[in-house]
């Protein structure tokens, strides 16, 4: 293949959503997805479940039917893009080849970042990012294995249970003063910590790993408090960064990710970006943020595709939101959960039962929320925030009892 009307770099949810929208919008244009991994497009979100053995490799695939892409005349192309030439509209490939595009979508997602510490390139030190990572970890994380997990952020927490469920002994080392500092406040972060401790994990917050070394056939992990331990596996989940190396040679505007306008177009004409690599409009703040979550990725991909195919569509911005299952304790966060100046907040907390709800308001609108131990109707939190519903008297009722979220939605919109 030498050229396509629409070329998509990356094969995650944003890429697949974009390719499908392109096909439904433009019946005849040629569409190519370029993937670094020679495998059907899959979801990283599903990897922890592959790690626990709950699903097979196929279970991680974004589309299950083997001829899904073929049927839609979407070409999957296994290659690594090394650079872009926006002038001539072509991509250089690691293999030495070249692909010409009509419109380009960058949906390369993010990659894990290993902190610059000695020993993190040793065998037995892994990210949990690709299917291959997951397979390698599964081999070492057997019953009785001793594991250090570096980072108790979103990804770290997701894989906690997978590691525990394999019968391993787990120590979590987090540099922040609480778990999931970017998604949880102090109260919630500490609830997660005590939950994990109750489950038999060791959680070290405000602690850093300083080095990993080989010793006695195992890995010796040394902490900044001087302690050290011999372990079988070190999992690095300290953070990710947008995968945009190949675009560095261009004058594309890149901060935390590739900056995109409301049409998902980058600062370069006919080049669009979507998903975890893109820094798009934040619904809550009006600023630009990377919101690395599947609903945002598919929305980005969909909007980008419409614009690429010539149907102008504007994006109102993505809502920062997450849901996390930390060894069985479910938490969620939405929007400006930290609150805003001059806004009110409401909370209730039952620490013994691991239940927590924290709502943030601006005027009589909900702008952010945190929950722990709640699973019913939590999507309404998104709906209330994103629809900017005026809560009227229900705001006072929520201030009194923040759990009456569903009623406040129904009363404000249906009654």
């Amino acid at each position, binding site marked *: 293949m030498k050229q396509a009307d629409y070329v998509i770099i990356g094969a995650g949810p944003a890429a697949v959503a974009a390719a499908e929208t392109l096909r439904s919008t433009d019946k005849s244009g040629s569409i190519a997805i370029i993937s670094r991994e020679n495998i059907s497009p899959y979801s990283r979100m599903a990897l922890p479940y592959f790690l626990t053995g709950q699903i097979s490799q196929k279970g991680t695939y974004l589309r299950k039917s083997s001829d899904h892409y073929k049927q839609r005349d979407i070409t999957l192309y296994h290659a690594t893009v090394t650079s872009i030439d926006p002038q001539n509209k072509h991509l250089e490939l690691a293999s030495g080849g070249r692909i010409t595009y009509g419109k380009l979508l960058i949906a390369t997602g993010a990659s894990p970042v290993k902190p610059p510490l000695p020993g993190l390139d040793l065998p037995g030190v892994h990210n949990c990012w690709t299917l291959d990572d997951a397979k390698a970890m599964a081999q070492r994380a057997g019953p009785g294995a001793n594991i250090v997990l570096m980072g108790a952020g979103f990804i770290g927490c997701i894989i906690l249970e997978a590691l525990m469920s394999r019968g391993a002994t787990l120590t979590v080392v987090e540099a922040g003063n609480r778990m999931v500092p970017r998604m949880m406040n102090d109260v919630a972060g500490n609830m997660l910590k005590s939950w994990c401790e109750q489950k038999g994990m060791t959680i070290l917050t405000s602690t850093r790993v300083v080095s990993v070394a080989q010793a006695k056939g195992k890995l010796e992990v040394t902490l900044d408090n001087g302690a050290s331990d011999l372990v079988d596996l070190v999992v690095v989940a300290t953070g990710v960064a947008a995968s945009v190396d190949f675009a560095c040679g261009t004058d594309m505007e890149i901060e935390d990710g590739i900056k995109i306008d409301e049409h998902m177009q980058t600062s370069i004409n006919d080049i669009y970006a979507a998903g975890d690599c893109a820094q798009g409009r934040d619904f809550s703040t009006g600023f630009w943020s990377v919101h690395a979550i599947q609903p945002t990725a598919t929305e980005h991909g969909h909007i980008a595709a419409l614009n690429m195919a010539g149907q102008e569509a504007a994006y109102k911005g993505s809502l920062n939101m997450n849901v996390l299952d930390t060894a069985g304790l479910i938490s969620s966060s939405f929007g400006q959960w930290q609150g805003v100046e001059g806004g009110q907040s409401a909370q209730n*907390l039952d620490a013994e*039962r691991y*239940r927590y709800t924290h709502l943030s308001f601006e005027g009589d609108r909900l702008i952010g929320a945190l929950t722990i131990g709640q699973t019913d109707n939590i999507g309404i939190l998104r709906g209330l925030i994103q629809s900017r519903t005026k809560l009227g008297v229900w705001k006072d009722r929520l201030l009194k009892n923040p*759990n009456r979220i569903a009623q406040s939605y129904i009363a404000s919109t249906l009654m």
Partner: protein
Amino acid sequence: MAWTGKILRVDLTAGTCTLEPLNMQWAGDYLGQRGLATKYLMSEIDPKVDPLSPDNKMIMATGPLTGTSASTGGRYSVITKGELTGAIACSNSGGFFGNEMKNAGWDMIIFEGKSDKLVYLLIENDQATLMDAAEYKGASCWDTEEGIKSKHGDQFIRVASIGGAGENGVKYACIINDMDRAAGRSGVGTVMGSKNLKAVAIRGTLGVKVKDREKFAVAVAAGKKVLADNPVTGQGLPTYGTQVLMNVINESGALPTRNHKDIQFEDAHDISGEAMHEPRKSDGKPNLVSNAACFACTIACQRVSTIDRTHYTVKDRPEYHKASGGLEYEAAWSLGAACGVNDLDALTFANFLCNEHGIDPITFGATLAAAMELYEMGVINDETTGGVKLTFGSAEALTTLVEQTCKSEGFGVELGLGSKRLCEKYGKPELSMGVKGQEFPAYDGRGIQGIGLAYATSNRGACHLRGYTIASEILGIPVKTDPLETEGKAGLVKAFQDATAAFDSAGICIFSSFAWTLDDVAPQIDAACEGDWSADRLLELGERIWNMERQFNLQAGFTGADDTLPARLLKDAATTGPAKGKVSGLETMLPEYYELRGWSQDGVPTAETLSRFGL
């Protein structure tokens, strides 16, 4: 199946919660709820026990159909020795609490001993914990329920609680669940208060299973159709609630008025179900907002009402401007006709307060009526009442004293004794209108003869729900009998009493029996429960329960002499209406009743009767 097979035993003295298997043989003989819990109570306490001592026990019990889709299948009962009566007490409540208890995996919770501090029991499925309730001390049932739900961050926690009245020993405190559903009579809330137990809060997510899903679905659908097609359960109760009866009973000449001095109330219409539908002058809205259902109930008789915001009771109290549980017939009668009060908003306000603070409006209204009579006779005066003019017909006396009673203030403390103790205190025991210490409900035994016998022989003191012969004598269900006739009433009362005991043990509401007979209930139980269940088996089981309860009362010290009515009903003839000139014919009905029951002339079950039921 249907039963969870588990009992939670809560020792409040020791502060422990333990699981026990349900005695399945007893379940076969007593089904559940009323029957089965009474069996447990009898086997565990001395019926002579002081109801308020730690040695009394209190059981919350579901039936096998509780928590299923059987229509009205959301009931639970509180069984204990009642403080108001000293007799067996069994108070049945709807709402959603019973289902939650069943869904948490419990057929029964047995409370024993006494906590040394105020506590509440928190149950999440198999986890049961006694929690400090200091923050809810003196709190109303409404605030307690809201507070517990909010504290634990779960609005689907169901709460049954007592208000300050139960903590302060008001003799007829009830246990309120779901804001306005009550285990109402006999002072079961007083017993709960004596144990320093403020509330029971439950979240249950385990599910309720039945023996044969498909067969059960067919039986339930058939039952629902019978209820829908019946004019009482299909139309009358949803539209007017039990208040459908106010005008009917008044016209029958059986609406006790002014402490049973009269049996017709000239203003009955003003406080009737029809009046609740009429637009108010002030805002053009009716008292009634809607009808509502308890868990699984396809009848939906519950009233939801508001008080006129310009009414004197609430014009400066916006917290009562919301909708809440409205007047049922019994409360409308006791707060209204019994006291001669015709102000629907005042009655609704009083009813809200009874729910909020957890007192039984029947006994409260009847006690106030007795006090009004004492006041009009000059036995008590302004000094006794703290200046409140206790004249019949005074809405202000009603609303002032309901609040004082709920909060144990002023003369309300004395009203909190109930009419028997109050009238005895002032040397006029004959003015207490009740049986075995419990006040009559809203039907007069002179105008409806059968109900007089039902009251006299009711095991929990005067009660309409132990043998609701009104169904036959007024509504013609299952067949019409003449309310003024005594002949045949002994058999009617016995039949109603036995069937009712079975209904009350199944987890369903007795109001279903306006349309259902045991022939409608049996297929539902048979599909849900192990074993073979026929209407005959249920009827026999009902009679067994009745005799067991009787045994409890006899062992507690009651005798046949307590199966009587106040002199007013036996000697003072009705002055108006169809029953004009009539007194209760109890003395002709009672011997026949004893005989039909297989009891001696003194009202004691014979050895043969007892052995027939394995007692």
